[in-house]
């Protein structure tokens, strides 16, 4: 598999195959981030496309002094926030529930395992749905997308200590909510 740095360099040179490969590699992430913020599958698809348009327009501004994923997450977050601001002026006609439409890439070989994975995912979404936006965001950035504490601190412009304490609080909150929904979770 080609390294991201190589793909980016080729994209900057105008290689359309490299751009397609880059989109293919990160489309799942962009869509997951958009789903997390928009909580509506149709809008998430539009926002995810917008994320890649912004990446395409700003390729020349990425110089590699930071990793690509935090940079992409910053663009994604800004695109989602812009979309949420636009949506505030006009609420959506109908919400399409995320759990009913998204397809998770499942490595489970059997239908039973796939069903268990899907029900665990639905449980997590239901629990996260009730959390505050800031807790949900920090959980998404750290525990789901795997950013480091320093990267999150730079992205959200808050101290690293605040990131750690908010993340721990969010994890405990999520664990408690999941156990309220399913007392056998983790047993």
């Amino acid at each position, binding site marked *: 598999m080609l390294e991201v740095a190589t793909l980016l360099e080729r994209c900057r040179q105008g290689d359309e195959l490299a751009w397609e490969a880059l989109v293919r590699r990160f*489309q799942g992430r962009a*869509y*997951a981030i958009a789903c997390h913020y928009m909580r509506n599958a149709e809008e998430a698809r539009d926002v995810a496309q917008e994320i890649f348009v912004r990446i395409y327009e700003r390729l020349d501004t990425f110089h590699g002094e930071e990793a690509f994923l935090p940079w992409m997450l910053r663009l994604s977050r800004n695109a989602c926030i812009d979309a949420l601001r636009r949506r505030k002026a006009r609420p959506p006609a109908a919400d399409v529930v995320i759990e009913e439409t998204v397809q998770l*890439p499942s490595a489970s070989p059997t239908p039973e395992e796939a069903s268990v994975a899907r029900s665990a995912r639905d449980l997590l979404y239901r629990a996260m749905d009730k959390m505050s936006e800031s807790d949900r965001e920090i959980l998404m950035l750290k*525990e789901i997308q795997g950013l480091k504490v320093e990267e999150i601190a730079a992205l959200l412009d808050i101290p690293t200590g605040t990131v750690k304490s908010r993340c721990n609080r969010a994890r405990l909150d999520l664990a408690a909510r999941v156990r309220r929904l399913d007392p056998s979770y983790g047993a």
Partner: protein
Amino acid sequence: MNASDRREAEEHLLSCRDCRELSDLSRGEGAPAAAPADLLGAILARTSGPACGSARGRLCDHADRLLAPVDDDLVLMHLEGCGECRGLASALARLAIDLPPLAEIEPEAGFLAGVLERTSRRETLADRLAAGFLEACRRLGRRPRIAWEGAYVGAIALLILFGTPNAPFAGVPGRALDLVRTAQEAVPAVTATEKVPAIKMAVAERWEETRTGVAGRTRGVAAEIRRIGSKTWDPLKRELGTMWKRIASQKTTTDGTNATEKTQEGQGE
């Protein structure tokens, strides 16, 4: 202890069980009494308070194996005796496995093609202007009272351009009408009749040229407007359809009930 005191004590011990047990304990004999189950909770309640808050403050680091050995042991000892915190610790461990797979969600088919469509082609100035125009139309269309506002602005514009005495195009409609009448009078009827087909053909050709050019540029705008319109109206139409069916089915039920009641009344008579 002197001999008489000892004799007195031994006589007392023969008759007092409690003192006998205390004496055995002090000598290390007999089974130690088991502490009551709630003794720890009662002691903590009277001293530092429950330790769950302190344990939960370290649970995340314990799950991530970031605690110093001493802190880790303290947490483990607390978890042995606290079911609630033990459940939380298990849930945290399970979340560490279940959350990372949510990082990627496969979008539906056509997503990649949509992105490439929007990014790979070289944009001309006309494309950028069209995209900007579309975005502006989208933003306008999202305003809740756009129809009213558009009609209001249009009426004001017409008034300003044509309606007032000092308007820049004041009298233009009247003058245009006069021009048409003058042309009708100046051109003989026979000549006008002969020239009409040629004029019609020229106008039709020019119109076709313009139409094709405009259609090409506005195809994208029309598709976008149709998409936005469909997004707005389709749910509304479905909602109205559902309401209508509900009303219709209620009416049917009411008619059926009324018919049944009339029949029963008829039979009662």
